[in-house]
């Protein structure tokens, strides 16, 4: 093995790739070659570092210099200064990665990482996901070896059971129990499936795990296969994740080549192989029975349970279906023991949870926190607060199945049960932060539009009920809301929750219910006063020009796309409300603050 004195780690996750990291890597390789350093310095393509807001990101070791927002034209400077002369390029460093005296902080001391605990993401941004050797060097496939050679099948299940690991896909069912149920039935064929059909708007945790550490999922599936007595696994991954799909293919290929998948693994006689199945963009396929139907080649529609997949799943055989992030925890539990894992987190929610932070937050990106961390710590310490010093209004978790957490619950320790108690849910881990400029009625409408679009149509409560709810919301946002609408919404929501066929339908009304619960006054302002307090719902707001402040410059009229503003020098300008499309161009263009939104 060659000895490299320095390594340049560049993120090639979807976030950084879309902001040009592949070109940056090419440039690095070119400049390093031109400087004659190719035998001394290695460029490593890694997965997501989590701090997507600051991408493209690259870290240079051994110094640990954390460069952010890199552009292709910055690369020659990093090479000639840092790599050739050893002078760190201070102005390109991530400003929070150095202390007051410009000394580089260790990664764990950077504010964004300080409160995080990376178990599922431990290898993301650390290893090259396309090189199985690097995964092995970080104790990869050791857990599989340990399970196969030192543990019985029951001991493996017991270990997961005792660790308290619960499903990270949203529902939070104990993983060990799922495995136990699937081991029980006698069957010569069983299946291990991985749900990588991450569909919630704003969620990208599973994508990052697959892109940054695909072998962790493969290894965990093999362990699950051993535990329940299965020889075949399937990963159901969205086709919209091309990088994840490519890395999974490479990972499966390398694992097969090394004999870590296939026949007689570690000489124990255990056989296990994994195939990919690509989902083609239906949200409902993330629901377990619909997902299994889709793997079988059928239409992705849910079916009633029981029978549960543990008894009658894929092709009618006992099947376990685990989420990507759940599986990413398994190997660490086997290696470090269940006590280690259960020492992290709260009483009923053990371990960590990965959240995809998005919306009105400074550090958009991926964070992994111990259960029990408060929302305040996530938003203000790890997330770096809200841009522009705006006021926090609510955080939406659980996507279209979840709800909002308002400011009054900022200090609730986040775990499965606490979130449920305040009317939201853990969900798969999307967390959308909203500030005072977000209209909660509009947010509820957004999620409901999503569910209406994605409803598979099999059961009427979801197909018809959610559409009726959306119609009422549209009416409210258009200023045509009436007394009694809220009660109607709540009644419909209760009925849908009680009667829909699958988990998606049953949870679809949640965003509406939780926003009504915490922001009833906002709904009432829409209905009674025909007013949108956040100034979002177009039909409820008017732009007006204050004649006292108007300097009659006419810049608003020139910027108006519909030419509905009239006036003349020394005659204050006026907006013709009947033609106004409420685009706000006049307000942005006015230098004197004379235009206001009412």
């Amino acid at each position, binding site marked *: 093995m060659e000895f490299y004195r320095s390594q340049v780690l560049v993120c090639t996750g979807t976030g950084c790739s879309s902001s040009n990291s592949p070109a940056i890597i090419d440039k690095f390789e070119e400049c390093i070659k031109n400087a004659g350093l190719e035998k001394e310095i290695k460029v490593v393509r890694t997965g997501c570092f989590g701090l997507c807001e600051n991408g493209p990101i690259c870290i240079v070791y051994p110094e640990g210099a954390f460069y952010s927002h890199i552009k292709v034209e910055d690369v020659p400077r990093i090479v000639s200064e840092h790599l050739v002369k*050893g002078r760190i390029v201070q102005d390109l460093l991530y400003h929070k990665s150095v202390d007051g005296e410009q000394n580089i902080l260790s990664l764990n001391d950077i504010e964004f990482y300080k409160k995080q605990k990376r178990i599922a993401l431990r290898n993301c941004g650390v290893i090259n996901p396309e090189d199985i*050797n690097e995964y*092995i060097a970080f104790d990869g*496939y050791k857990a599989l070896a340990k399970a196969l050679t030192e543990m019985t099948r029951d001991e493996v299940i017991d270990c997961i059971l005792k660790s308290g690991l619960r499903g990270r896909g949203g529902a939070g069912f104990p993983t060990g129990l799922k495995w136990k149920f699937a081991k029980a039935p006698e069957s010569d064929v069983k299946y291990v499936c991985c749900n990588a059909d991450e569909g919630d708007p704003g969620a990208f945790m599973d994508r990052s795990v697959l892109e940054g550490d695909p072998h962790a999922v493969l290894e965990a599936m093999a362990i699950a296969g051993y535990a329940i007595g299965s020889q075949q696994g399937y990963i159901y991954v969205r086709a919209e994740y091309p990088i994840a799909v490519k890395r999974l293919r490479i990972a499966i290929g390398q694992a097969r080549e090394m004999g870590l998948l296939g026949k007689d693994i570690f*000489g124990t006689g255990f056989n296990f192989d994994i195939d990919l199945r690509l989902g083609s963009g239906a949200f409902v396929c993330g629901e377990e029975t619909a997902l299994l139907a889709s793997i079988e080649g059928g239409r992705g529609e849910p079916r009633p349970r029981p029978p549960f997949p543990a008894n009658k799943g894929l092709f009618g055989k006992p099947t376990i279906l685990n989420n990507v992030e759940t599986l990413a925890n398994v190997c660490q539990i086997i290696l470090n023991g269940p006590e280690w894992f259960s020492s992290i987190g709260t009483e009923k929610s053990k371990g960590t949870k990965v959240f995809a932070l998005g919306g009105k937050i400074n550090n958009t990106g991926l964070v992994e926190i111990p259960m029990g961390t408060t929302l305040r710590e996530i938003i203000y310490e790890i997330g770096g607060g809200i841009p522009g010093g705006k006021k926090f209004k609510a955080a939406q978790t659980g996507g279209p199945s979840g709800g909002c957490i308002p400011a009054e619950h900022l200090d609730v320790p986040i775990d499965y049960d606490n979130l449920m108690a305040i009317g939201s849910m853990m969900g798969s881990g999307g967390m959308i932060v909203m500030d005072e400029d977000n209209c909660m009625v509009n947010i509820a409408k957004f999620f409901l539009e999503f569910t209406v679009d994605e409803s598979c149509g099999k059961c009427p409560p979801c197909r018809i009920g959610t559409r009726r709810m959306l119609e009422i919301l549209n009416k409210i946002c258009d200023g045509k809301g009436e007394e009694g609408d809220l009660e109607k919404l709540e009644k419909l929501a209760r009925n849908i929750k009680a009667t829909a066929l699958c988990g998606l339908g049953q949870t679809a009304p949640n965003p509406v219910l939780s926003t009504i619960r915490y922001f009833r006054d906002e709904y009432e302002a829409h209905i009674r006063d025909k007013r949108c307090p956040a100034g979002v719902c177009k039909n409820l707001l008017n732009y007006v020009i204050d004649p006292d402040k108007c300097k009659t410059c006419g810049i608003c009229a020139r910027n108006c796309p519909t030419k509905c503003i009239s006036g003349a020098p020394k005659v204050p300008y006026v907006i013709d409300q009947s033609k106004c499309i409420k685009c706000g161009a006049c307000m942005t263009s006015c230098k004197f603050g004379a235009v206001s939104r009412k």
Partner: protein
Amino acid sequence: MKSIQELEAIRQKTLETINLRREQTGTRVVVGMATCGIAAGARPVLTAFMDEVAKRNLQGVAVAQTGCIGVCRLEPIVEIYKPGEDKVTYVKVTPDMVGRIVTEHVVGDNPVVEYTIGYYEAKNK
């Protein structure tokens, strides 16, 4: 994959590559590589250190460069930092001195006194 030994062998082999990305706690060999250092011949010294570390398969040793250390007339300068010890500064280092520095100081814990800045300055007063 037929045995755990096989897995462990791969792990050991790759460990070297990735150790660099872990928290740095071991010995650091730092070569002054500003314009003055490079002009005085620091690059062959740096590569000689890298070869030596690779040849002996030393774990936990990082070879890095730094900017100008300040006494350009004594370049190439190499500083060795060992945890819990004062740094040792070697001056006018040539590739053929590297083997001895690694053997006696990096591995053996005995700085090569006659290569150090203190010795050089005392002798050339």
